[in-house]
């Protein structure tokens, strides 16, 4: 089974400029670990030292923030779309 992970432009230099990555993960936490295994360095951008998802990076499964689902334990099924949306402050 495959899930789609949408990579924001700030992290694309770690994914070889790919904006969409296909993974076989079954949970959000697994997805982040798989992502880091495939693209070393991306994990630390998304999770802190304790493994918690950083508060200025949101992870959505099919448009829902995993903080309001089951966090890293949120299950994934084939076809799910995982979006990584970091805070951005630019405006001028």
């Amino acid at each position, binding site marked *: 089974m495959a899930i789609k992970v949408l990579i924001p432009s700030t992290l694309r230099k770690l994914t070889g400029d790919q904006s969409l990555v296909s993974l076989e993960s079954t949970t959000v936490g697994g997805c982040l670990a798989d992502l880091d295994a495939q693209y070393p360095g991306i994990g630390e951008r998304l999770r802190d030292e304790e493994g918690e998802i950083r*508060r200025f990076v949101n992870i959505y499964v099919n448009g829902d923030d995993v903080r*309001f689902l089951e966090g890293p334990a949120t299950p994934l099924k084939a076809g799910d779309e995982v*979006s990584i949306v970091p805070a951005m*402050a630019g405006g*001028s």
Partner: protein
Amino acid sequence: MSLPLLTPEDIRRYHRHLIIPEVGSAGQRKLKGAKVLLIGAGGLGSPAALYLAAAGVGTIGLVDFDVVDVSNLQRQILHGTSWIGKSKVESGKAHLTELNPEVEVIGHEEPLTSDNVRRIFEPYDVILNGCDNFPTRYLANDAAVFMGKPLVDGSIFRFEGQATVYLPGKGCYRCLYPDPPPPGAVPSCAEAGVLGILPGFVGVVQAIEAVKLILGIGESINGRLILFDALEMRMREVRIRRDPECKVCGDNPTVTELIDYEEFCGMPHRESSVERALDDDGEAAPGTKAA
């Protein structure tokens, strides 16, 4: 409060609005009576200000303490070459008045701070956020929550933009991002660059949302974070929920007054110790200076 009447000149100018049933004469009078504050007269503020003035929003406030730099003109279409080195607020006033002399443009030529934000926000119906830094984003958010003002938010980075609307009681920026990134973790447009046209798109989305709020029409993007990717020319959205544990707008808020936002964002105070020593207030301001 009674709405201002339309003059014969208004009726000619806004003809294309007046013939839309969703706007009409009643809606145009709402626009004429409306007051919108733009935080930043830069990338997002420029297109938003121009379109809001053209649309007949009666009062437009501009908060910016910067001067026009040649590197702004790649995207900040509110300004022009002859204004380089001059005040953005004055440049904005001149351009908006040229576009629509009936609009009252109020300049707030000062950095937005915890000390002045209530005074600056108070007269306005809608706040449109086009600032360029995290301290000002959290400051504007908290002030909007405390004052019950709608906040039309937008941000940009290279080819990507985000936009949403926060309405009183329906979630806020801290529900979306409870904590700011550490300084330097997220590069600014000055460091990373931005496609000059991108803020045109996002700023216009913000202007449309502001006008919808004023008119009370359509479906607001409140509760939805719009994600725009210009490279893929794709617009997606994710849901924003009010977080019952939000420190500002949750069920048991722990932040109930404005704080020091530079410190909250882990930044050294922007003004140097020399300037601080010269300024007895010593309040280092989260600014709206161009990134």
